[in-house]
């Protein structure tokens, strides 16, 4: 689900996401992947001329453990978009955005399409 500058994704719990087999908590990398994906999606949606995005940095605070068995939602919004860089903020939660399990700030490089919109730029993507 997305609109320009905002996006929401859902990730269902799966046994292969577990990072702690004793508690069943998902691996931190699962949340990293969800948040990097949703932040990148938001950066792509920010303007119609975006051809490619690449994450420059991503900072995540793990506020509390994600509940085993429950779907995770990743949502993000553009804080500020400049010509080359978008500043994004995002959260991961179980359905209540006021009770996040993690929040993040991402800086994402934007490559815009050529004027004719025909060619994709050389891939310099990092993330």
């Amino acid at each position, binding site marked *: 689900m997305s609109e320009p500058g905002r996006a929401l994704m859902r990730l269902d719990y799966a046994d292969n996401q577990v990072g702690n087999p004793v*508690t069943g908590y998902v691996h931190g990398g699962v949340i990293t*992947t969800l948040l990097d994906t949703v932040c990148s999606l938001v950066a792509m949606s920010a303007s119609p001329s975006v051809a490619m995005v690449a994450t420059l940095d*991503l*900072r995540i605070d*793990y506020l509390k453990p994600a509940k085993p068995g429950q779907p995770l939602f990743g949502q993000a919004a553009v804080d500020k978009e400049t010509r080359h860089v978008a500043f994004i903020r995002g959260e991961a939660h179980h359905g209540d955005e006021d009770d996040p399990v993690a929040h993040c700030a991402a800086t994402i490089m934007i490559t815009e399409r050529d004027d004719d919109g025909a060619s*994709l730029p050389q891939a310099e993507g*990092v993330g």
Partner: protein
Amino acid sequence: MHRSIQQLKSEGRLCDVVEMIPYAQFLGLECLNDPDLGLLAVLRQRPTNIGNPIAQAVHGGVVGALLEHAAIIELWNRFDMETVPKTVNVSIDYLRPCRNADTFAQAQMIRQGRRVANLRVEAWQSDRDKPVAAAHAHFLLA
């Protein structure tokens, strides 16, 4: 898991602990005890880890998982931990495209407090002096 980690560690098989983590198995995250470099985390080349099909680059979240994984291996190596340490936060810099190839990572303890540890992690592919990503992270020790 406590007994397993301690037992494997005492047998010099710390790297085998990784096999108990389902997400590590899913991504192809391993642990390697290199005679020269010491303990390393490895992300095996897998087409399913690609995040950018045009650039054929590994997904940034998967690279993040590798960096976090390397930090956890270093913490297990240094401390007698009962389980997987809790990550407080992580800050990842994506420095170069992470190509579809084996990727290595190693963590370094920057500051060890009583309750919290700060680690710096770097990931590289063919050339260690050209890291593809770096992170610093805090973990709870207690």
